[in-house]
């Protein structure tokens, strides 16, 4: 589904993605973790070309993402992206937020889109909040609306860039619950996160990155109990001691 | 029109333009100085505890802001003689510019002072600083940083406003253009040269503004 072949990216002299090779199959849940500045956010932002790459091939669903001739609208319609800071549209209600893309991009008629929107919002537990504005919702609720917004496009892939890092602790679980359901339902997901509990429960593989490179790739239990590399060990020890 | 752009004429009139350029600089510079003084005084009045002072400043500022400079200029030019005050044109012009920009400077300074977070002043009070010490060490330095850009913006406006003085026969850049038009029927050469001189002043002020901001960059709010 997602294929990185020798992907490289530089910011000026800084080599932020260094010879990335990775394959993500359909239905897989991959968690990406690593210290700050390791390039994990940049990695997933390249998948829908929010960031450009200078070298290598990134192929999603048989379409080359960074080819100038590729129709990005088609690719982006199949990828849902969840941001750390939610990025909900403040001037639209929850329903407005989730339906704008289906209406404008998938060209679904308004009534049908609204019906789908209500169903999806209900699915994430916000059926009674469809007419609320983001300012009236808590952080956890806003992030769930953001997930619904992604789901309404019926994507093949969902990408999450530190979805719970900006949330107060008591709201993290409501978002993780929604993500767990998605994973169990067979969605292809790549999640950048520090939530190790979540990773252990639902991830098929954990990708550990540091300084722009992929250091270790392993099933979660293997990685957390028996990291193979020194950097992996160091990272885990620094995470788990707080 | 452009094929016959007469550079010779401009060369011939260049001494005049040179004089007028200096006149514009002199008139604007003098007015700028006066306006800043008037601005500081009016701002102090506006923020004072005395209701009378606040009202006087308020009336002054609101009248200036709600009426055009040209009307204010004519008001003084035609009105002062009727109450016995006879002044050379350029003095009337400078007074009009000072009173006009003074009101805008008062508002700029006020905004700069009020933009300072009250918490800073509280910290000053809490550590025992007097009113004047707080003014000197906390408020005014930050107000300077906040206001340098709008103050230079108003200075640019002031230079452009000085062009109106040409309408009461004062010899400055715009009048030079008018002369070339009326004496030689060459408005193109006349006014384009005038415009070029104003652009020189504009870019010089912009460059100064950039330099001044860089030096005060530590004052920037994040």
């Amino acid at each position, binding site marked *: 589904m997602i294929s990185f072949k020798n992907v490289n990216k530089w910011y000026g002299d800084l080599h932020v993605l260094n010879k990335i090779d990775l394959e993500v199959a359909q239905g897989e849940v991959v968690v990406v973790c690593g210290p700050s500045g390791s390039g994990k956010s940049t990695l997933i932002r390249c998948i829908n070309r929010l960031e450009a790459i200078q070298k290598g091939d990134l192929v999603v669903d048989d379409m080359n993402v960074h080819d100038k001739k590729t129709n990005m609208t088609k690719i982006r319609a199949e990828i849902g992206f969840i941001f750390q800071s939610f990025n909900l549209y403040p001037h639209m209600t929850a329903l407005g937020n989730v339906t704008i893309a289906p209406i404008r991009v998938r060209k679904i008629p308004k009534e049908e889109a609204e019906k789908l929107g209500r169903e999806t919002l209900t699915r994430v537990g916000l059926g009674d909040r469809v007419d609320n504005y983001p300012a009236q919702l808590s952080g956890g609720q806003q992030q769930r609306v953001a997930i619904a917004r992604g789901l309404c496009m019926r994507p093949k892939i969902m990408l999450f860039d530190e979805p719970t890092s900006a949330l107060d602790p008591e709201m993290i679980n409501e978002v993780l619950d929604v993500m767990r359901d998605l994973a169990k339902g067979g969605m292809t997901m790549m999640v950048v996160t520090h939530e190790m509990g979540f990773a252990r429960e639902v991830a098929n593989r954990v990708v550990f990155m540091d300084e722009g490179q992929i250091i270790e790739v392993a099933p979660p239990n293997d990685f957390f109990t028996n990291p193979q590399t020194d950097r992996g060990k160091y990272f885990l020890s620094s995470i788990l001691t707080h | 029109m452009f094929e016959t752009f007469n550079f010779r004429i401009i060369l011939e009139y260049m001494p005049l333009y040179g004089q007028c350029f200096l006149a514009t600089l002199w008139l604007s510079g003098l007015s700028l100085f006066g306006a800043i003084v008037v601005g500081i005084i009016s701002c102090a009045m506006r923020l004072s505890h005395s209701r009378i002072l606040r009202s006087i400043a308020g009336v002054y500022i609101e009248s200036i802001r709600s009426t055009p400079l040209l009307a204010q200029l004519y*008001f003084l030019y035609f009105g002062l003689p009727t*109450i016995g005050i006879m002044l050379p044109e350029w003095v009337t012009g400078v007074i009009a510019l000072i009173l006009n920009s003074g009101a805008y400077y008062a508002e700029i300074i006020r905004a700069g002072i009020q933009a300072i977070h009250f918490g800073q002043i509280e910290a000053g009070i809490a550590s025992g600083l007097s009113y004047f010490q707080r003014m000197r060490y906390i408020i005014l330095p930050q107000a300077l940083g906040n206001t340098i850009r709008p103050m230079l913006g108003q200075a640019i406006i002031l230079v452009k406003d000085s062009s109106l003085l040409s309408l009461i026969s004062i010899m400055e850049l715009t009048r030079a253009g008018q002369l070339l038009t009326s004496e030689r029927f060459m408005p193109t050469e006349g006014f384009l040269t005038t415009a070029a001189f104003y652009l020189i002043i504009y*870019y010089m002020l912009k460059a100064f503004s950039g330099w001044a901001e860089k030096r005060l960059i530590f004052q920037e709010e994040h």
Partner: protein
Amino acid sequence: MWSFYFNELMRSLPFFLKGLWMTVAVAGLSLIFGTIIGFFGGIMRAGRNKPARIIVGAWVDLIRGTPFLVQIFIIFFILPGIGIELEAFPAAVVALTNLTASFICEIVASGILAVPKGQREAATASGLSYYEQLRFIVLPQAMRSILPPLVGQYVLLVKDSSIVSAIGVVDITRVGWLTVQRIPEGLMVFGLVGLLYFAVCYPLINLSGYLERRMTVVSTKL
């Protein structure tokens, strides 16, 4: 004598009201055209096309760097040289529209650039096109920071319109200028001129302030 002149002035009231109407007409037309052009310019100025940004930026700089009086002389005197003959009123509207559009262009561009980057990223990520993003996501949010300075610009427009009197358009200022030749009471005549401008500008200034306060309240809720 004073009361004689006062009565004469009152008898000239209809003339002043005609001038008021002319001011409103010139300013009103320029407001409409200037806003439309300004919005398009602002969208280009904040857009992806670099050459467009530079060209619009250069146009704005030229207008901000030269006095409006000089601009209106250029349009009125120089355009006939390249075949565009304009009478005073159309020339005035063209010049004022040009001036207003350039300032609104900057206001709109700032407003657009002030919308948080994350909003555009979210819209891009869901596949919305550049124009769909502008229309549904960016502009609605930009209006919040555009509206107060926009109304402020309209106040400036009314005041700058007084300068068109220099090419003979019979607006409030010109009426005052013509009247003071007959009724040599400068204070009275231009006092009335000021009052008329005040009546138009003061409410607009308050509207702008009100909008500014309302918009700030809404954003802090976010």
